[in-house]
């Protein structure tokens, strides 16, 4: 059998059972390959994304405090909702000003709504004015682009990275540096006098400051790189998933107008979001390196040290898993419970995305429906639809399946009220 080859000449793993096996055996038979992504390494070296084995487990254990069930409920209900209110208020003001239904870029709207969540998850102070929110939003967009620079094909890698590093310096000066210093002081004060100084909230910077023995095994730049990862992860999946969902649903509703009545149904929107991520995989392929000679479930032999590309795009569209119409969007798709409806967009095994429940919700808690459904419900309550005059713009300068802009209009903005206002 001739192995399929992907970018960089890597063997592509496409059989669903092999994909599942490699992802589940990461940390055991396979490791991560951070050395392959030069620019990403500048931003994320040593972050939990790129660790293996015991280091990876210990980092996950430390950072689990940031993502407890109660913390997720806090981010979703007490941080995201007010930011959504503010985003709606901005849109409503624009509608009043123009006397119509303004066309806005959904990518920017969703990202702006998530700025507060990023600040709360990482532990960034000073995000307390429209000007600060706008500045952090611009920084986060740059960092998000920076993490994906290695995938660009339009010859802009170096120029983009220069801009990203300038934005990162701005991030350190304005937000990250002062916030880390304050948390280090809070942790120190709590240790010195636990009764007089209550423990600070377990955001990322606080849990890192609380575990110096672990963090000091890397260089002093590690907290910044970990914060960069959390910033990108907190915004990236939800933003691209929500945007793809709105685009896919628009086409679906043209053919299935009876489903318009379901746009207030969180379960329906959750299914639509899952379908969108399944079809628009977060990465073309996830790289893994064999730590020893391995025989995959399909019988394919992988020699020690070979680097593989796990083709999660192919596995997400596999007809044996998702049916004969696997290439099509269908929010009513039936699937076995054991199959993640999102495909492998959140990875799998020990490297399954820490924020999976953050995005998709918690079936055991009625107050946690996840960031994606929360945002989609709000958007559809405002009558969102694609701008008929301006189609979505795909980012053709990357191998990633990314949307650069999604112009939308809202038919029910007038009368929308905000608690932030």
């Amino acid at each position, binding site marked *: 059998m001739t192995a399929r080859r992907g970018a960089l000449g890597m063997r592509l793993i496409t059989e669903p059972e092999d994909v599942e096996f490699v992802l589940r055996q990461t940390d055991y038979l396979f490791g991560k390959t951070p050395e392959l992504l030069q620019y990403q390494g500048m931003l994320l070296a040593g972050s939990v994304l790129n660790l293996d084995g015991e280091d990876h487990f210990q980092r996950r*254990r430390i950072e689990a405090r940031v993502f407890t069930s109660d913390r997720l409920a806090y981010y979703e209900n007490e941080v995201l909702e007010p930011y959504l209110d503010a985003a709606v208020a901005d849109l409503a003001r624009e509608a009043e000003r123009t006397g119509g239904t303004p066309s806005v870029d959904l990518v920017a709207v969703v990202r702006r709504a998530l700025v507060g969540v990023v600040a709360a998850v990482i532990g960034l102070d000073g995000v307390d004015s429209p000007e600060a929110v706008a500045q952090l939003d611009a920084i986060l967009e740059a960092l998000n682009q920076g993490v994906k620079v290695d995938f660009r094909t339009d010859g802009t890698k170096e120029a983009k990275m220069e801009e990203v590093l300038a934005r990162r310096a701005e991030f350190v000066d304005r937000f990250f540096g002062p916030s880390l210093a304050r948390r280090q002081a809070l942790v120190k004060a709590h240790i010195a006098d636990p009764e007089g100084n209550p423990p600070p909230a377990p955001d990322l910077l606080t849990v890192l400051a609380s575990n110096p023995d672990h963090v000091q095994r890397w260089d002093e730049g590690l907290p910044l790189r970990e914060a960069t990862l959390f910033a990108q992860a907190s915004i990236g999946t939800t933003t691209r998933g929500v945007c793809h969902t709105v685009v896919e649903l628009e086409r679906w509703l043209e053919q299935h107008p009876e489903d318009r009545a379901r746009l207030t149904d969180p379960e329906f929107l959750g299914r639509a979001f899952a379908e969108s991520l399944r079809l628009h995989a977060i990465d073309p392929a996830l790289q893994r390196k064999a730590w020893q000679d391995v025989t995959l479930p399909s019988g394919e032999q992988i020699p020690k040290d070979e680097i593989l590309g796990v083709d999660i795009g192919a596995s997400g569209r596999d007809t044996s898993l998702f049916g004969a119409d696997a290439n099509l969007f269908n929010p009513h798709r039936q699937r*076995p419970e054991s199959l993640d409806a999102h495909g492998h967009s959140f990875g799998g095994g020990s490297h399954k995305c820490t924020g999976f429940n953050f995005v998709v919700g918690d079936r055991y808690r009625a107050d946690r429906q996840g960031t994606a459904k929360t945002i989609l419900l709000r958007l559809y309550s405002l009558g969102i639809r694609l701008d008929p005059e301006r189609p979505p713009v795909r980012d053709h300068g990357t191998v990633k399946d990314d949307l650069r802009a999604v112009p939308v209009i809202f038919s029910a903005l007038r009368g929308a009220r905000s608690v932030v206002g």
Partner: protein
Amino acid sequence: MRARVRIQVDAARCEGTGFCARVAPHLFVVAPAGTSQVLVEYAPETELEVLQEAEELCPTRAIRIELDQG
């Protein structure tokens, strides 16, 4: 009757990270099929803290614990 903790693993949701077995090897094991299994259905209340950590570490929320006050 003393309080105890009921432990359940949803095999359909478990992705075999093995985090639970690393946090509490006396309560969980990763089966050859690649999913976690509980070694006891009920654990004493003294295990509550470690079980809460196992539950929160699981990225797919496949672990569910419930305090049974007896």
